[in-house]
């Protein structure tokens, strides 16, 4: 009886294994870096993780809807350079509102392109978004060939602010979480899980499958633009290549967080936990006196172990029930 209960709890809260891993990782990190829980260190870490956390949220929405978006990182690059370009040469007179609005529109349009290709033209999602990632990344380099730009200090200052004593990054994650909770309770939220789980059944029961799919990509484009804004606030410059490496991180993070890439299941909490886990693993490696040249290897192996974890548990269970 006990395992059965456990099993269903894990199915419903698929991020539980990741949460356990996260607790272990935090403990190890604390052991290696005693000032880990100091507010300045903690909020500094959170600031570093926030862009990827938002990108993972964007990815998880698409994946729940049964797709995948390999262009999210390129969208981040494109939005970053569009914003920095719009701010102009003088940080004093930079039209901040216009820059942010342009950035958000860019993200929406990029998401719309992906969504139309996948939902209405019925292109295969993986290769489609891979193809559009070239288009977006190329456009980003076209807009701003080399890193630079003049970002007003007010943006970087806000990013380091602690409204009501709580770091801004926590506010952002809380707001996104609230939005996610609201979305889940709407009709769109129910449709989203239905489309990702069994698109044909969803179609037969009258769910507007194509619209839902389109929306997932558009929302992902928008959230990627938010991620790009945090990148600009965090780095204070525009770099046309900054986003591309983040795509892989977003996919790995949601997988670590218990979301299946086959769709119909998963959630925002798992995505954020996955990002925290990735970040803390990296932090541990940098504090553990690992030889510099071996850090990438150790990082890769730990990520693989974390990815393999649920599968190992399942394989061992299957073996046991076979031998019994």
């Amino acid at each position: 009886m006990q395992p059965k209960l456990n099993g269903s709890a894990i199915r419903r809260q698929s991020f539980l294994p990741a949460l356990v891993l996260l607790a272990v990782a935090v403990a190890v990190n604390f052991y290696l870096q005693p000032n880990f829980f100091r507010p300045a260190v903690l909020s500094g870490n959170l600031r570093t993780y926030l862009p990827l956390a938002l990108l993972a949220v964007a990815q998880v929405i698409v994946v729940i809807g049964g797709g995948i978006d390999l262009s999210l990182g390129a969208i981040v690059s494109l939005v970053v350079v569009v914003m920095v370009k719009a701010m102009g040469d003088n940080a004093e007179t930079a039209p901040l509102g216009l820059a942010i609005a342009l950035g958000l529109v860019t993200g929406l349009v990029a998401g719309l392109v992906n969504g139309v290709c996948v939902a209405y033209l019925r292109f295969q999602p993986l290769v489609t978004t891979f193809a559009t990632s070239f288009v977006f990344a190329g456009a980003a380099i076209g807009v701003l060939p080399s890193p630079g730009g003049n970002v007003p200090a007010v943006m970087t200052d806000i990013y380091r602010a602690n409204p009501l004593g709580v770091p801004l990054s926590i506010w952002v994650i809380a707001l996104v979480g609230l939005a996610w909770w609201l979305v889940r309770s709407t009709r769109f939220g129910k449709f989203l899980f239905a489309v990702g789980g069994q698109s044909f059944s969803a179609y037969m029961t009258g769910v507007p499958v194509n619209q839902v799919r389109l929306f997932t990509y558009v929302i992902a484009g928008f959230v990627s633009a938010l991620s790009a804004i945090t990148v600009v606030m965090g780095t204070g410059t525009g770099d046309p290549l900054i986003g591309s490496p983040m795509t892989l991180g977003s996919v790995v993070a949601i997988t670590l967080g218990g979301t299946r890439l086959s769709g119909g299941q998963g959630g925002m909490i798992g995505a954020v936990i996955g990002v925290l886990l990735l970040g803390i693993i990296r932090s541990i490696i940098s504090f553990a006196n690992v030889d510099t040249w071996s850090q990438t290897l150790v990082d890769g192996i730990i990520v693989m172990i974390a990815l393999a974890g649920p599968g190992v548990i399942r394989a061992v269970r299957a073996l046991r029930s076979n031998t019994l």
Partner: protein
Amino acid sequence: MSAGQSVMETDPQPKPLANAASPANAANAKRRVQLNPTLVALLLAIALFLLGGLLQPGFTSYAQATNILRVTAFLGIVAAGQTLVIISGNEGIDLSVGALVTLGAMLTFRLVNGHNELVLPVLVVISFIGLVIGAVNGLGVTVLRIPPLVMTLGMTGVIQGAILAITQGNLTGATAPVWNQLIARPLLFDMPGVVFVWVLIGVAMWVVLERTPYGKQLFAIGTNRTTARLSGIHVPFMTVLTYALSGLLAAFGGAVLLGYAQNVYINLGTPYTLPSVAAVVMGGTLLAGGKGSYFGTMSGALVLTLVTSLLTTLQLPEYARQIVYGLILLALLSVYGRQRSLRQ
């Protein structure tokens, strides 16, 4: 709804409608057969070649043609394993091929260190290493049920980490003169040896896919895992073997690439990962698995290489080339990558 509705979909249960051959489907299939992807890609390649001649005199020369074949050969060898993995279906994709190319080249560079007599043993060793790494990919996908995309991406991180850890940032070694001679110098009809290596692999791939039990079983598991299992195919073994072969071919491709490049850097193989997938798609192999051919992939690789060299000839800036490359991929998808409408 066939199993090919979405590549990201894993459903081990046969769907009731899976094999219902409705008249509409049959008509559709007939129409698709007429459009032979290999032929289309070949015609496209010829058209691009002639277009290049119009844009730049000298593009249609024999020297340029051999040059294009040479560049295509490297991509073609790497894409051979990718073809097998994608045919095997079930979201199959191998994104670790680029890292394996670098690893293969780096190890050959280091271990051979300029000694002609070491070339053959080292080739055996690195092929074996590629085979083992590929098999680990396959085990992760089958036993641990990690999605292939994530498994092979994760493996990319491990391989790149291993390269850094082995070399400590120092890429030392040397290419054996005989290997360079064999791969890069004109061997016959002014063609470099790599083109013949590629043709040999092409013939071997045809034999493997069309004339061996492995090939038959590969298409079977790509079409429908459940029916394949019920007809006595050991699906997990086949999957592991397929990823292992992909690893082997990628590592071997790295050694071949070294014979030409004669030098190694950390991102040597990275530019081969995504074009290898694109070449397979362009060759008409279904991303959902179960259907495809290596001749298609070879033609696809040829088209991609021609496009790249045309864009270089036009002296487009790098960013514009990227955009055009992406748009071409999208155009390709509109021909081959369309999924069935829910209404059908």
